């Protein structure tokens, strides 16, 4: 630095302006003596929040995995809470004494899943089952398909739909949607299981008793209301205007009775009939599903949940990126405009 620059700097410092007293009074008047700072600055908060959010995401995935892996082993055999239950072949053998008892009773491993249907017979329930069965060749496939529909018919049910395919390259599969009376579902599953080698089975039982009770109670209450309205309308001393109003309410009540009655009939129908989805395939068409242990299922569910979280994060990033780019461009433009302002 030159001697002249030193002179300039020393001159500037020596003659630096001071804040006028009026300004000093104005500023210091408004300044508090002490002020405590609460919380972390935004950047530190972000540095803390980010790992915490990631940790929460992983924890949520693990919890999801644990819960999902446990669901496969649950069964509301007593049907007390009206919750749907699912049973797969492997878990039914290990999880439920009733299932084992049923296996001994029926004397067949293939009916283990059927034996897990231990909902009390006095309760209304809807059963959904799905079976995957492997047969040797297309001839066996054709025979098994025919026998499956006959089994349903013999038990008082029917085949709602049948899809059959047998390509030239060999192999083939048939998907049959069966309906059987609820009281015969165990027998149906046991007989259908004998059509070939079981690849997988799934059962779910939804208790409908509570819903039925609620609907019945609503219908009874509506009947009482209708009776009360009829009695009120029959009163000769009632003013005409009021009579008209009561008639309108009576019509509404009767309509509600009809609606609730239909709904209850639907519930009864659902409870009276079980649905069985049967998939029969040849060796080429059906690949056995490997049964996983609990830890394996938990990890599988957790990874799936993490993948879902990653997808959501990616989606958010894609949506936010154009906005971030626009914000960056605006910032750059403002920066340039400041430079131009101060360079004038």
């Amino acid at each position, binding site marked *: 630095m*030159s001697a002249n620059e030193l002179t300039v700097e020393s001159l500037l410092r020596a003659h*630096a302006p001071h804040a006028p007293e009026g300004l000093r009074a104005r500023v210091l008047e408004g300044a508090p003596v002490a002020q405590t700072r609460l919380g972390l600055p935004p950047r530190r908060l972000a540095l803390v929040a980010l790992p915490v959010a990631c940790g929460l995401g992983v924890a949520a995935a693990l919890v999801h995995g644990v819960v999902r892996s446990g669901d496969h082993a649950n069964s509301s055999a007593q049907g007390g809470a009206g919750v749907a239950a699912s049973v797969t072949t492997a878990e039914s053998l290990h999880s439920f004494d009733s299932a084992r008892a049923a296996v001994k009773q029926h004397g067949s491993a293939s009916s283990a899943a059927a034996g897990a249907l231990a909902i009390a017979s006095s309760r209304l329930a809807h059963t959904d089952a799905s079976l995957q069965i492997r047969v040797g060749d297309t001839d066996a496939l054709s025979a098994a398909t025919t026998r499956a529909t006959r089994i349903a018919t013999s038990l008082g049910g029917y085949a709602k739909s049948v899809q059959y395919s047998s390509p030239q390259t060999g192999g083939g599969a048939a998907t049959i949607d069966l309906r059987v009376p609820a009281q015969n579902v165990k027998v149906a599953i046991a007989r259908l299981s004998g059509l070939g080698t079981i690849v997988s089975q799934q059962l779910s039982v939804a208790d409908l008793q509570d819903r039925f009770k609620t609907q019945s109670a609503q219908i009874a209450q509506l009947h009482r209301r209708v009776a009360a309205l009829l009695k009120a309308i029959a009163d000769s001393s009632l003013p005409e205007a009021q009579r008209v109003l009561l008639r309108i309410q009576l019509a509404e009540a009767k309509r509600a009775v009809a609606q609730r009655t239909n709904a209850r009939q639907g519930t009864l129908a659902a409870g009276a009939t079980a649905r069985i989805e049967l998939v029969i395939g040849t060796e080429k068409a059906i690949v056995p599903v490997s049964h996983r242990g609990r830890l394996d299922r938990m990890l599988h569910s957790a990874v799936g949940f993490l993948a879902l979280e990653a997808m959501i994060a990616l989606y958010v990033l894609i949506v936010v990126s154009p906005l971030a780019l626009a914000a960056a461009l605006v910032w750059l433009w403002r920066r340039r405009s400041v430079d131009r302002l101060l360079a004038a």
Partner: protein
Amino acid sequence: MNAASTPLDAPALGARPGFAEVAAEQLDAVYRYLVYLTGDRGAAEDLAAETFEKAFRSWRRFDPRRGSPRTWLCKIARSVAIDWFRAETRRRKREDRYARDLSASEDFGDGLPGPLQEALHALSPAEREVVALRVLLELDGPSAARVLGISQTACSTRLSRALRRLEERMDDVRE
């Protein structure tokens, strides 16, 4: 209060001064910076008051571990001044005055020699502000660069150029 006696170093780690204490210490420095940046003492006074108002509102976000109160206040002052520049530009455009017309009696410093006064007038606001930050307020290179939002190299270059122009201008005036 003399700038040289004003403490510049960041407080001890974790220590956080009170706002009133900081305001009393740094008022002169902020005012000087704004006088040099705007070239207008009246405006500098108003802008200094506004700066401390904003600083008071955001005082809880100030982290003494990341910089000195002076640097932080200068950043706020700069932002306030830029808004003022924008408003002035719009006002002058409306009034059809495109040339920046500084009053001849505008003082950058009490008792500053005339040639130096004129030389300062000839500098742009950007050049004056870097002189104010580095020379008057004695901010170090990194702090000044942070206030200006530029790199340290750019800050040093700007300062050298400003001082050279001041010197050249003073020589011209003397001649």
